[in-house]
């Protein structure tokens, strides 16, 4: 019994302390060093924050290059799918064009009527994304892992990006800046579990928190009153109650999936974003 215990302890000690033929560090030293790094990162001293920021900038640049083969593979995969779908899409688009042509005349009438009514009510014209001063950035890395749904962009503090700024892709909100380095920044996507956005539901005025659940087509609404019955095809807007995002930004839409289950999907596709606009969130309409 005692011999077995001794053997176990010897094997453990050997595994932990013994350096192999070409090993420069023992496992014990490196494990202790890792724990020290976790501790230093946790207490966030200015020196560790600065070191992390520098490390982030360097690693992101290398990572951008290293992830190129993967991006090329994804690109070719997408191109292949697109090629096979193009004929069907073309037919659908032709039908849509015909339908849109007939709707265009109605829309023109409504636009004119809308302008006249706005003038009568003395309302200013709505601003769009292009009117606001935004920082245009390119997506450098796409972190789609079980651990996080985030993006790295090629603009940082140098370009005026700070933590908390909002990020848009094709006029739709896709996330917020959670880490601003000197040359790069990290965007937490609305599909991430840690993303929480105060929202209001179309036609109801009910407030809730829109949380990510990992997928673009599967967002969740938290703190929704029990007696509210959600309807499909309703737009979810930001409520602006966090005091940072302006109200009325369309974020998501309710829908019924193939199994007739009620779901919420993001209006933007964060994983497909290649160019994004970073703002301070004051897109007041």
């Amino acid at each position, binding site marked *: 019994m005692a011999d077995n215990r001794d053997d176990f302890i010897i094997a453990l000690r050997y595994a932990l302390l013994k350096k192999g033929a*070409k090993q420069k560090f023992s496992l014990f030293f490196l494990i202790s060093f890792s724990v020290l*790094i976790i501790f230093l990162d946790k207490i966030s001293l200015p020196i560790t924050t600065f070191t992390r920021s520098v490390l982030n900038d360097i690693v992101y640049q290398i990572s951008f290059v290293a*992830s190129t083969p993967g991006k090329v593979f994804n690109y070719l995969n997408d191109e292949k799918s697109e090629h096979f779908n193009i004929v069907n899409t073309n037919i659908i688009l032709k039908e849509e064009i015909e339908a849109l042509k007939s709707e265009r005349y109605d829309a023109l009438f409504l636009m004119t009527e809308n302008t006249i009514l706005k003038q009568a009510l003395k309302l200013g014209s709505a601003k769009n994304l292009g009117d606001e001063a935004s920082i245009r950035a390119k997506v450098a890395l796409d972190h789609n892992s079980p651990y996080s749904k985030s993006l790295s962009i090629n603009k940082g503090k140098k370009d005026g990006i700070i933590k908390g700024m909002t990020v848009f892709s094709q006029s739709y909100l896709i996330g917020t800046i959670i880490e601003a380095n000197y040359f790069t920044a990290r965007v937490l996507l609305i599909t991430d579990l840690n993303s929480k956005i105060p929202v209001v539901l179309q036609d109801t005025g009910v407030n809730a928190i829109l949380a990510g659940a990992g997928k673009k087509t599967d967002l969740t609404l938290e703190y929704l009153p029990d007696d509210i019955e959600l309807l499909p095809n309703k737009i979810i807007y930001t409520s602006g109650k966090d005091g940072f995002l302006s109200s009325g930004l369309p974020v998501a839409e309710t829908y019924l999936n193939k199994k007739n289950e009620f779901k919420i999907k993001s209006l933007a596709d964060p994983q497909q974003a290649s160019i994004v606009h970073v703002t301070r969130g004051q897109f007041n309409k």
Partner: protein
Amino acid sequence: MNILKLIKEFFLNHLAVLALYFISFSTFEGLNSIQEVAIFSFNLQMIIVYFYVLKFPSHLGNGHIFLAGIFNDVVIGIPLGVSSLSYLVLSFFTNYIRNATLRSRMSAEWITFIPALFFSNLIYFIIINNFTHLSFFYVELLQNTFFTFLFFPIFYYIFNYHQTRVLKDNA
């Protein structure tokens, strides 16, 4: 020509280290990038660490495992040192298994990968839950761990074939 040969030799001899760094930098998550087969995503870093520490420890240093973990943390965006500690715990268990095993068999090594993965992930969860405010997709992580275990034999034979060839060429 001679330089090309040297580069080729370097790549072949240091495949484990290079693959580990490349995967850490390139945000490779198994098959996660292909939507249709994303469920089969697995952690290749863990397989590399386990295989090389178990079978060819002189080809993968602890320092490289530590550094690859640090890079992985930066790329994924979690606190520094978490992946390093996780990989080093895996390495520690693998070292122990190597010392305690008398006769090496693939099936036995495949089974012992379960406790090694378990303790490695356990350390990871404990740190993430206690030292950060991050939430995780537990089901995805469980799937990832399961397929890491499941795909181990495939990579075992690939790496084993490669190493035997490299060792034969060097002899």
